């Protein structure tokens, strides 16, 4: 199983796009037309839309961060609890032996 997964990792290794990929992206960004407001309220609408997008985008990412942090808390408690539980059971065993 391990060998198969390693083969899969190797087969799906990241690969580079064309050597001039980054330059082409930057060229497209520079060439993107600047939109001029046709109506006085368009900049306000754009600002509201941007603020909404910002809020939604931020909320989405906060949720992602929160879920990841939650997973870490659960993992930590699982590990700590497991070690503590082993110690507890050992103590109980020793106490049980000395009482019997």
């Amino acid at each position, binding site marked *: 199983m391990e060998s198969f997964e390693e083969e899969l990792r190797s*087969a799906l290794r990241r690969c580079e796009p064309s050597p001039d990929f980054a330059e082409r*992206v930057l060229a*497209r960004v520079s060439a993107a037309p600047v939109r001029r407001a046709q109506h006085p309220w368009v900049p306000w609408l754009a600002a509201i839309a*941007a603020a909404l997008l910002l809020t939604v985008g931020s909320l989405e990412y906060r949720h992602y961060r929160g879920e990841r942090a939650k997973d870490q808390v659960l993992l930590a408690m699982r590990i700590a609890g497991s070690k503590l539980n082993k110690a507890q059971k050992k103590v109980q065993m020793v106490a049980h032996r000395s009482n019997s």
Partner: protein
Amino acid sequence: MPRRAPAAASVFDFASLVRQHQAMVFSIAWHLLRDRAVAEELAQDVFLSLHQHLAQMESPEHVLFWLRRVTSNRALDEARRRQRRPMVSLENAPEPVAATSTGDPLLGTALKKLVAALPEKARAIVVLRYQEDLDPAEIARVLGIPVGTVKSQLQRALALLREKLSRVVGQASGLSPREE
């Protein structure tokens, strides 16, 4: 005339972000679509979108999450669209150069083609798991699907890949599946 407040400046250097993440974005698209030209076009579009949303990015980790999510979803959309159109033969698809490859090249090629033949969602899950090394919970968040779905689809996909690969290997070595 009221003075406009200056636009919020992003702390990220866009050109650096492109160079840093271009392999990841392109590879996700490539492994999902198996068409180099389309994958590069899609990757470029993703970075253009990133440029438009740069002010929303809170951290390098946010950028990474955003890129994986947008690339995967757009590639999946494109893959579904292409299902309805005749595709270029996978046999003729030129292979981009991988960073370093330690596996068997023939096996690797066979595996890539088998992955490309998986249903789109399963394909995305396998790519995010083995190209990006994400765990099922992270894959679930990137794709916006339940983690249970990720785990079951991953399990089924791996079983299918293993079974198909053993047939391919058997055929290549001249053995029929029964003779293995």
